[in-house]
């Protein structure tokens, strides 16, 4: 869940309040980054993490995280087209509400919100760009 909203700083960390921001409390971990960081790099890291941690039992998470990883790597290398970014978005959405456990679900949320809210970071020109 990627947020760029000052309201976030004033929101108490409980389930109901966090939901008003369109996010979920999850494991209550917060990562703060500044605007010099390119989000495709961040998403690459999160997808990498979830792909590595996926247990492999259910089809959407096992195959979906693998697919998303390949897509994001291509995006990060600058080899991707707009269709590839759209595909990444669709794959993430396709995984939602189908997985056996929340790991698969949560792996998709950062991806969807990042692409929806910060599309500029996923264009070819932004690739290989600034990392944190």
């Amino acid at each position, binding site marked *: 869940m990627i947020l760029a909203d000052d309201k976030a700083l004033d929101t108490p960390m409980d389930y109901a309040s966090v939901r008003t921001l369109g996010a979920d409390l999850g494991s209550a971990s917060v990562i703060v980054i500044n605007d010099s960081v390119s989000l495709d790099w961040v998403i690459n890291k999160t997808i990498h993490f979830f792909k590595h941690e996926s*247990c*492999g*039992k*259910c*089809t959407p998470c*096992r*195959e979906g995280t*693998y697919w998303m990883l390949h897509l994001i790597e291509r995006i990060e290398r600058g080899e991707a087209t707009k269709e590839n970014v759209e595909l990444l978005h669709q794959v993430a959405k396709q995984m939602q509400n*189908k997985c*056996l456990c929340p790991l698969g679900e949560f792996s998709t949320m950062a991806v969807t919100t990042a692409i929806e809210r910060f599309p500029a970071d996923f264009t070819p020109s932004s690739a290989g760009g600034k990392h944190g």
Partner: protein
Amino acid sequence: MAKMVSLTIDGRSISVLEGTLIVNAAKTIGIDIPVFCYHPKMEPVGMCRQCLVEVGRPMIDRSTGQPVMEGGQPKIAFGPKLETACTTPVSEGMIVLSQSEKAKASQKEILEFLLTSHPLDCPVCDKGGECPLQNLTMEHASPQSRFIYDEKHHAEKHVALGDKIWLDRERCIQCGRCIRFQDTVAGEPVLAFYQRGRATDIITNSEPPFDSIFSGNTTDICPVGALTTADFRFGARPWEMKAAASICSLCPVGCNVTFNTRREAKANGKVVIKRALPRQNEQVNEIWMCDRGRFGWHYTESEERLAKPLVRKNGKLEKVSWGKAISLAANLLADSKKDAVVLASGRLSNEDLFNLKQLADGLGGEALLYDSLPGGELTTTYGVPAGTNISDMGAGTTIVVAASDLYHETPIWHLRVKQAAERGATLVIVNSEATKLDKYAKHIVRCEKGGAAKKVNGLVKEFGDAISAAENLVVFFGADGSSALAEACAELVKSRAGKPNNGLIGVWPRANDQGALELGFKPARDLQAVFDRASVVYVAGADPIGDGAVNAKNKKQRPFVIVQELFLTETASLADIVLPAQAYTERDGSYASGERRVQRFYPAVPPLGETKADYAITAQLAAELGFELEGRSARLVMDKLAASVKSFTGISYRKLAEVTEQWPIIGRGDLYYGGTSYQNSQGLGVHLSLENKKA
């Protein structure tokens, strides 16, 4: 009275038993919800997510506990997500939508995910043509893939799991059916998942690899071509083969099988059997088969099969015509009369044995059963009657297994007794050695070889109620040297004779010993003496000299021997006349299983050379000797048999071919549900009655 639940699936209302899973409830009304990891014979895991459906339940008002009504009907609340039909049991008033837009989109998407990693192996994959993944892809998935081919996951292609099974790691869709089968059904956890995520692989953790006599079943239930048999590798395409129903001839379980045959150029234009698959018979072998039966039919196609009759001339066996061989044999038998002995084994069908018995009776000679369990004839009085089904045995049943290693002798009985024990049956094992069934037994009694009878006699004293107060008692007995064991076991079940799921079951060494005993053959004792005093021995389907039961003496003292066999065994090579018989794959016939169920088999391939069916040969001999025996077809012999042998009363080939609806629904173009076992449309068999019952 079991509770029934009413629900609606895709607009159709049904009523099923409480606890039924949605996917099974849908199946009963012909709605196929696609599945991969679910199998009707195993507990569901909900792993593959292919069966996701929309499920709505009546809303209940939390304060009043009453359903919320809307327009006279209960208001239905659909879950926020789709639910797996394989793990969700039905509930009252439930509404299931498997064809709604959401559900259809989900089925399509899960298949798309599976296909991103699945290799494009269909042209070379043995499963092609009978592959659930192929079928479901054609039905539900998108024709184009959005995954870039170069990024596909690669893994080891042909990994040998033992010498019978090949694993292709790329094709595996990680459904876990093989692992769950080995763990829960077979009871031998020799397969496991290794690593996680996209790198999940199947490995075998036994030495030798995949050390299980049930390994072939995993190739039936695997929904893709990941597990295939080495025996059949690249044999033929499923649509190129014809199917023929048969009964496995290797052990007394009598597993129903289907042979797939094809006319091949490799075999010089002959029709050959390519593979054997199980046929569903829930009362005998369910949908399983052991590896011995699955790969053990090759002997019928051996190059060394006899194709022409042989007669000894000047010390050597020479090929002759049937007419000559029969007339010579008839002369020998006519001269010997009462001193003739007919020695048959349980390898022959009921029809063959009946004709042999009639011949022996007509001559006034003896009819002996080769190498069976001493005391086995007690099963004709105390055996299990109609209505017996190991699948019905659970809590309240006591099963005694004496002096027999079911796993090696009759693997499918091992499987079913194990499952009965897991359902609560009390298992008592009396054996001199440890067996794989021990870990399911409540009581294990060790004895010396030959000492099982004594221990069986002491069972009631030692375990009291477990034996005497059990609702049902079944005793399996094997070979322990003398008839004392059979007698001791018969004592245990005497009072229950005639009650279903009660009685004596002999773990015979061959398929049809039960039939032979029912037809009046006596188990042979001291074959050496028999050979010494007989003037002619007519041996059918037995090799006493090769097995060491009889010493081949010099010609003068030896009786004349007529052998009816498939191969030139040691006995045949020393015989005076050798008559070539047809294998069971080439003809009709019937076997009586150890549970006293008569099942018929059908021809799969044309007969070899000039071979004839055993019953036909015996009938021809009888005709030469001046009395009439039916030999025109197996069906007619059975009719005669049923008319004269009490326990076979009412049995006919038509009755043996009757089938009733079985659950789970197997075959019929719905391979993803149960696997590639065959639907049984050729006959479930008929139980023998206990007419010889003595109170």
